[in-house]
């Protein structure tokens, strides 16, 4: 059987393509006496998310919030300390499920640094053919696939197949990285700051291309970025992270039109104005995000939150549905004990 045909849908459109439950990743920090682990970076803590078939899930947050760790967990570049993943009904890395290798055939990733993610000693054609060949595709078919992939990402095969990464511009290299991610005909692509290093005029080209490829190849995206405007442009649903936790999750219209969490609101109003007559006059929140080593107790945002009260330090707010979106804030939970919350 040719293992490189497009993978058929199994569970139907209602079954999430990817379901991750209770993912946790803590990184030990060496230090203290005799280099023993004394502290941990709590990069991702009990995170549950699902990605629906055909959607683009945007993930936003500031540095250290764990968004790149989430990306690496979803494709198993790092192993979670805890938690399970299910890909279209198949548990990942469990006795009756699929292997990590099979996961990676169906889930691919594009990184921020277009140069560092390509092998400088391989031509573009060799890079693109590598995975299909490793999966048993005959050489002639692999060559055909390389040509097809390059055309898909808008690079003329006759012109680019024999070049090396350093002979390409940043935008062209990122197109090659996207082509490589498509080489095994995956269903889900994780784009981790994939357009962040590009100049604006080139970024627009790549964004247009991502939109086209998604329709053409029936793809699903997890789009991770610190750029709120680009996430708004591309995403169907948006997940906002702060210090390893989801603070808000919902449809893009709800998150941008009616944000409920004080952090989401601050993040959105911290965007520079595009109108010189409506400049920002006050920063929405002060200070930097705290270190993810020893995050604050209770709600991790409380140290920068203008509405923080005792309850916020005592108990951790859980992600609760508000009708349009899910929010982790005591102010939005009736009877939480916060003065701004409705009575139970």
């Amino acid at each position: 059987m040719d293992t490189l045909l497009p993978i058929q849908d199994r569970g139907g459109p209602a079954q999430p393509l990817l379901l991750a439950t209770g993912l946790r990743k803590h990184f030990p920090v060496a230090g203290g006496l005799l280099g023993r682990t004394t502290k941990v970076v709590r990069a991702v803590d009990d995170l549950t998310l699902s990605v629906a078939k055909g959607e683009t899930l945007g993930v936003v947050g500031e540095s250290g919030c764990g968004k790149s760790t989430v990306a690496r967990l979803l494709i198993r570049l790092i192993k979670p300390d805890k938690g399970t993943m299910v890909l279209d009904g198949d548990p990942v890395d469990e006795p009756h499920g699929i292997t990590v290798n099979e996961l990676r055939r169906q889930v691919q990733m594009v990184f921020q640094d277009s140069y560092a993610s390509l092998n400088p000693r391989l031509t573009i054609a060799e890079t693109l053919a590598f995975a299909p060949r490793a999966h048993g595709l005959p050489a002639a078919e692999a060559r055909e696939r390389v040509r097809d992939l390059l055309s898909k990402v808008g690079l003329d095969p006759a012109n680019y197949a024999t070049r090396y990464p350093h002979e390409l511009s940043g935008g062209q290299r990122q197109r090659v990285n996207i082509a490589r991610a498509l080489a095994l005909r995956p269903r889900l692509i994780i784009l981790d700051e994939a357009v962040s290093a590009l100049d604006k005029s080139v970024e627009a080209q790549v964004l247009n291309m991502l939109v086209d490829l998604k329709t053409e190849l029936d793809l699903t995206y997890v789009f991770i970025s610190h750029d709120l405007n680009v996430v708004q442009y591309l995403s169907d649903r948006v997940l906002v992270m702060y210090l390893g936790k989801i603070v808000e999750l919902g449809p893009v219209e709800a998150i941008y039109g009616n944000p409920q969490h004080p952090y989401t609101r601050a993040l959105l109003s911290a965007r520079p104005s595009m109108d010189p007559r409506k400049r920002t006059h006050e920063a929405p929140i002060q200070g930097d995000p705290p270190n993810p080593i020893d995050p604050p107790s209770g709600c991790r945002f409380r140290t920068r939150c203008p509405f923080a009260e005792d309850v916020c330090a005592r108990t951790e707010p859980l992600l609760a549905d508000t009708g349009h979106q899910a929010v982790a804030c005591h102010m939005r939970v009736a009877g939480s004990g916060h003065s701004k919350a409705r009575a139970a």
Partner: protein
Amino acid sequence: MTNLLQVRDLHVTFVTPDRTVHAVNGVSFDLARGETLGILGESGSGKSVTLRSILRLHPEHRTKWSGSIKLEGDEILDMAPKALSDLRGQRVSMIFQEPATAFDPVFTIGQQIAETVRRHTGKSETEAMKRAKDLLEMVRIPSPAQRLKAYPHEMSGGMRQRAMIALALSCNPTLLLADEPTTALDATVQIQVLLLIRELQREFNLGVIFVTHDIGVAVEVSDRIGVMYAGKLVEMAPVERMVDAPQHPYSRGLLASTVHDGMRGQRLESIPGAPPDLAEVPAGCSFAPRCKFVRPDCTTAIPSLRDVEAAHAVRCVLAA
């Protein structure tokens, strides 16, 4: 407003045994005291090279320059080394994108600010340290007395950038050069630093040149915006005018291709192709190969930077 800085026909070429790069090809502009000029451009447009030329930070033996940069009448390109080091940090200072690498990791923040104060004002160590503490307070660093003793790695990115601003303003310069100072910062921190720069600029009536690739950032801080492409200014206009009615096809493309609120579902207008290689000086308009309005006369001669109305200049044959 008095004229603080005058740049005329600046050319900067980097020459190495392997290749020659014409990074800046004839840049001219004026800056008034108390004015903020935003220079907007993509990577390789020559915006940072222009900025660094004002402090002559390029390696002398590999850089060829011509033209003129005058600060309050003094020609910077002719300055002797001693005069140049008096200039740097005293009359003109600079803040960089990455404060973690701009500070020396083995000295405390206090030592580094005090050193600059002593070099330029001849104050005693105690006086200089006192000044450093006042400066940290001015940039609103909490508990400044303790922070004087902190090493750069002990501070967060936002705090380090504030400390860098304190250092830059330590000798009351008249001109502040900012090279993408908020690019490496988180969104909620970036806006704090932008507001701080804007406020200090007003308080001290500083001339500021703010180089950035981010249109939103340029709009937040600038009085005027200059757009650079392939080592040339292609358009210069007051900020409102630049946002409302950009004239050069590149400025228009840049503004249209920047994703912002309310563009969801629309196809983005992108500029095809990539910026040119600067190994050779082109005979015509550098943007012509990517321009959808290109005409035969675009490639035969370099268009001049012409005023289309007061304070609005455009380098394009189509501009009227």
